[in-house]
């Protein structure tokens, strides 16, 4: 009796057991709906599963097939282009906007709040607005440029391969800039003003202050923010699905939309899983690159590790 009681007491008060009970709900969700599907996805990529049939092990056949597939090659090319170009622009504009917002001005709080709206509104819903703005016949951009006399005919934003690519990249940059700007602004506001006073006394120019004070101090936050940004851009789905659905002729297909089209619409689950599993090495590389690449600069500038 006392032994039983003692064991129950131990289960209730022992640190490790207590921790176990507290972790249980979160762990159950993450194991059932994240870890298990992650493993299952890798397994499925080695099978010929279709919707309604579990499939048999076929080894690397799916991978051999997609690597030789021109559509997959285009998707990889565009996914990389989309990620690189959009991230670069998002970083440049986001940092610039953060620096602007960090200056003294009237209505600062309101302006800052307004800037974040594109991030709040669901991507699909703002993509619908871009869909209309990029309409081949009734685009307001074409209309304005025609009125200004800069162009003759309408711009075929989403109907031409490279126009469509630049248009979706623009929409992605538009959606991503607020997140980066506001995150970096929060970082800027933690920088000690005394450093800028010291720099001013030493006769530093604005550019020197940015280059030798702001930027090095901001690097750790830039590293984290850009890691997230690159990750979300690389795995983007919504914007492309709504704006172009991968068209015209697959020129804006991303790996994510291709895996959806193959597995869900085309019912070839094995092949679709191979496409999405092929994203993993790229993701790891992106994380490693932005993480370690930028972390190293931190101590190169003589910063402590905190």
């Amino acid at each position, binding site marked *: 009796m006392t032994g039983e009681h003692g064991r129950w007491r131990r289960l209730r008060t022992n640190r490790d057991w*207590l921790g176990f009970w507290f972790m249980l709900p979160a762990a159950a969700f993450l194991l059932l709906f994240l870890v298990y599907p992650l493993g299952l996805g890798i397994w499925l990529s080695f099978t010929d599963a279709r919707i309604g049939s579990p499939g048999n092990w076929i080894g690397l056949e799916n991978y051999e097939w997609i690597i030789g597939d021109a559509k997959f090659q285009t998707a990889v090319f565009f996914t990389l282009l989309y990620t690189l170009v959009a991230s670069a622009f998002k970083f440049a504009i986001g940092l610039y906007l953060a620096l602007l917002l960090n200056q003294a001005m009237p209505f600062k709080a309101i302006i800052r709040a307004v800037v974040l709206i594109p991030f709040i509104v669901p991507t699909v819903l703002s993509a619908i607005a871009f869909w209309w703005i990029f309409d081949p016949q009734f685009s*307001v951009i074409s209309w304005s440029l025609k009125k200004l006399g800069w162009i003759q005919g309408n711009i075929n934003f989403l109907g031409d391969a490279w126009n469509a690519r630049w248009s979706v990249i623009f929409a992605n940059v538009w959606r991503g800039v607020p997140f980066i700007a506001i995150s970096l602004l929060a970082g800027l506001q933690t920088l000690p003003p005394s450093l800028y006073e010291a720099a001013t006394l030493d006769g530093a120019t604005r550019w020197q202050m940015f280059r030798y004070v702001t930027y090095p101090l901001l690097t750790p936050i830039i590293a984290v923010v850009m890691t997230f940004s690159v990750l979300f851009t690389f795995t983007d789905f919504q914007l492309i699905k709504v704006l172009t659905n991968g068209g015209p002729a697959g020129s804006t297909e991303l790996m994510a939309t291709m895996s959806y089209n193959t597995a869900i619409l085309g019912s070839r689950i094995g092949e679709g899983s191979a496409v999405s599993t092929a994203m993993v090495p790229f993701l790891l590389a992106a994380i490693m690159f932005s993480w370690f690449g930028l972390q190293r600069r931190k101590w190169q500038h003589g910063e402590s590790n905190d």
Partner: protein
Amino acid sequence: MTDDTEGMSYLSTLPRRLVTLYAPLSLIVIVLLFPFYWMTMTAIKPKEHLLDLDTHNPFWTLSPTLEHIEELLFKTDYPTWLWNTMFIAVAATILSLVASVFAAYAITRIRYRGAQWIGGAIFLAYLVPPSILFIPLSTVVFQYGLFDTPFALILTYPTILIPFSTWLMMGYFKTIPYELEECALIDGATRWQILTRIILPLAIPGLISAAIFSLTLCWNEYIYALTFINTTDNKTVPVAVVTAFTDGDQYRWGSLMAGALVGSLPLVILYAFFVEHYVSAMTGAVKE
């Protein structure tokens, strides 16, 4: 406010600030807001003006109408979709907040063996994107018999929300002094009492941040909602709006824009009330 240029701003004259600050800032803000202006304009313009750019200036309308919004609310299933979206978002947020608070408390305060390691693993879970999970998840959802039910989304969204909320709550819990907890332990409080009576009341700003950010993420989610839900009546706003108002090549722009506008408004209103919480949720998860 630690504004680095405040002390020296008297050095720059107004014309200079116009060029270096106000002009670029206005340009960026206009570009960021234009799609919403355009969305609103389209939603309140009469149908015949939409495709007639020559007789009516597209940037403005003198005869605003509510016909699109009225059609949306009374002639389509839009209210059902809005209700679905809200219900799913709220349910998933509550589930994940409960799970996250327990997990974050255990990691930061109970500090069981391997807590640090688990904390790292949860951060990694944050980096696993839905677009590499949705294919295997669709087979899992099907196996569990959840396919085409709201539960398919209510139970899968927490995988996106828990890592983020746990990380955010950990940050908040770390700022609460240990002494408070030790006092309570000495007074004979149980872990449960400490959590509900001491820690949670002090972490309310964190809870609000996590809750509204989670709501926003659920509202915004698309790929799971698109894959796991088939019946029109069970769809969420983002999925339903795109398919409902496009008949082949015919896009009903008025309804599409009204749908996008009405679907965004609840979030924008929520955001207007909790701007600071949003910002701290966003930056809190990034800073750690």
